[in-house]
């Protein structure tokens, strides 16, 4: 019996057991980009932030944009997976692991952006030694480290039974798997404790995730600057974060589905559900954006309007309208009907949203800074090769981390798929019956349930 199910889910173990040339090519390509980023950072570290395009008054640019963007992506994971788990959505089973891995990997990259942005990275520990809790940056540090810790635990817990499978099946990396499996045997008690722990973490992780992007938005909204000082920023950033997170998750799913031939696990129905979720988030994002800009426009304070017009028709217009196109028009057009070519349509929408949400972060950070209140003239910001290199390196490092993870651990949860077959099916039927009115006749599937 065990042998049969093992072979049934062989595609999930295949990437760990065998490695093809595609893997080495990918690692090579990503390493080149990471190297470019490292060279860029080294030049900045030795010469100062002057090698970037930053100046007076645009003192924040790509790095802060990337920080907000990457931290936003992290909401893919944990939040989506936690919500799907808690709402007992059965289609979550092949998705949750991929989502959780994104969160953990991208949080490292996102937090790293702030370190890259510092003028004095050597004094980074001052934040702990002389930390000043009145500063939103400290709120960020607290919230993000809590989220990182919780996400690692939340990723690790559901991995334990899978690591035990690897320990029993694979000949290589015995020590690693044995240690990480924590002596898992799959006994009923262990199963009960594990399910309990996962449920607790799922509940815990949701408020932490919401707090993370709320305090990221507070970095901007706590200042008095035009088009930053807005009460809507907390929820606006959280919505944008979930929006970009789902898009990143879909792209990762499609990439690994192709690379590891997981078509049997990640079916069009999964993409259809996620696509519908993405569509809802796109509409919600539009609603928030509309509310935010209309409030600014209608009040038309001169300082606000300077920034407003810089975005609408000034130097930032291609980025602003590009954002509207990629975050709203393209997703709505592609996702409205998902009957046919589901995967392709969802992929186009997701790639478009990833571009759009990066533009959105940029269009929030830079135009406000480039339009000072006093008559200084407009500051025009253009990134240098250092900033492009750092950005390419960051994306590549994220992809590389993800790729290496899939070589060590199954990217789809094996035991949760099995649980779906063995327990889920019956459970769903039972649950469904409890929703329906009692007909008096005995239900088709007679199952004894005590109250």
């Amino acid at each position, binding site marked *: 019996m065990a042998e049969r199910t093992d072979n049934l889910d062989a595609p999930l173990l295949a990437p760990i057991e065998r490695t093809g040339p595609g893997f080495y090519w990918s690692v090579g390509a990503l390493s080149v980009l990471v190297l470019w980023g490292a060279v860029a950072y080294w030049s900045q570290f030795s010469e100062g932030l002057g090698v970037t395009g930053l*100046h*007076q008054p645009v003192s924040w640019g790509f790095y802060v944009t990337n920080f907000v963007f990457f931290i936003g992506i992290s909401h893919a994971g944990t939040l989506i997976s936690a919500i799907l788990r808690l709402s007992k959505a059965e289609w979550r089973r092949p998705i949750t692991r991929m989502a959780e891995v994104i969160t953990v990997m991208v949080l490292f990259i996102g937090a790293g952006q702030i370190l890259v942005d*510092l003028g004095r990275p050597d*004094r980074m520990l001052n934040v702990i030694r002389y930390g000043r809790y009145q500063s939103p940056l400290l709120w960020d540090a607290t919230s993000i480290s809590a989220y990182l810790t919780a996400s690692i635990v939340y990723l690790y817990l559901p991995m334990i039974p899978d690591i035990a499978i690897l320990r029993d099946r694979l000949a290589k990396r015995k020590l690693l798997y044995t240690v990480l499996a924590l002596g898992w045997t799959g006994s009923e008690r262990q199963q009960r404790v594990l399910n309990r722990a996962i449920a607790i973490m799922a509940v815990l992780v949701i408020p932490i995730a919401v707090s993370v992007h709320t305090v990221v938005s507070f970095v901007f909204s706590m200042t008095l600057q035009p088009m930053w000082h807005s009460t809507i920023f907390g929820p606006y950033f959280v919505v944008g974060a979930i929006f970009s997170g789902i898009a990143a998750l879909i792209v990762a799913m499609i990439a690994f589905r192709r690379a590891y031939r997981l078509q049997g696990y990640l079916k069009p129905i999964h993409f259809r559900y996620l696509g519908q979720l993405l569509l809802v988030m796109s509409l919600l994002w539009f609603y928030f954006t509309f509310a935010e800009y209309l409030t600014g426009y209608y009040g038309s304070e001169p300082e606000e309007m300077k920034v407003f017009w810089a975005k609408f028709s000034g130097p930032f217009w291609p980025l602003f309208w590009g954002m509207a196109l990629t975050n709203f028009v393209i997703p709505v057009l592609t996702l409205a009907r998902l009957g046919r070519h589901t995967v392709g349509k969802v992929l186009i929408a997701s790639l478009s949203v990833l571009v759009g949400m990066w533009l959105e972060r940029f269009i929030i950070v830079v135009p406000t800074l480039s339009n000072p209140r006093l*008559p200084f003239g407009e500051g025009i910001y253009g990134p240098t090769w250092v900033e492009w290199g750092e950005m390419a390196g960051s994306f590549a490092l994220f992809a590389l981390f993800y790729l290496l993870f899939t070589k060590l651990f199954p990217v789809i949860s094996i035991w949760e798929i099995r649980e779906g077959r063995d327990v889920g099916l019956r459970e769903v039927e039972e649950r469904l019956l409890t929703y329906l009115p009692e007909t008096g006749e005995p239900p088709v599937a007679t199952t004894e349930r005590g109250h």
Partner: protein
Amino acid sequence: MALWGMVIDLDRCTGCQACVMACKAENNVPAVGAKEAARGRIISWMQVLTEEDEEHPGEKMRFLPRPCLQCDDPPCTKVCPVYATYRNPEGIVAQIYARCIGCRFCMAACPYNAKYFNWHRYQKDAPGQNPDVSIRPKGVVEKCTFCHHRLQKARDRALAEKRELLPGEYMPACAEACPARAIVFGDLSDPGSEVARLARSPRAFRLQEELGTKPKVVYLTEGEGRG
């Protein structure tokens, strides 16, 4: 305790930039070079902003000398994560160069753009520097301090001579250098001082007063041609 403040009479300002140069010489503010200047990296603790006069377009420029306004409720100190910038008991907003981590949050938060960043190591240990003002390394924020070192010196002198600090004994370089006497400096908490008297003038206004930052640099609006 004194509350140091400044009144700048815009009717007297000729836009000559003597205050700007005096400030740079006094505080070892580095010349960043033409290339960096073109990239928008000039450091100028005191800066004369120019604006076309809406009532006389094409004929008249308005000048607005802008040091750090030394807000009593400074938006920059609120956001600093490491106490590298703070308002001292005499109302001067200070910057600790040795502690600043260079996150530039204070620059983003200042509504007057009065904070400047060392994008490279601009300052060299060259002869002719003022020994009373510390050299700034690369990667930290710097700002106008109302020539705070002059206050320390004046106070030391008064202490050595066993007397109180005299009015006018402490004055920043910009106020001292202004040939038109447009900049008046002194103790705002002393109602009899010239600076306090001028600050009560009906011509007095503060920059972006509506933000509630309570600047201690007060401007006297131009009288001519304005009702």
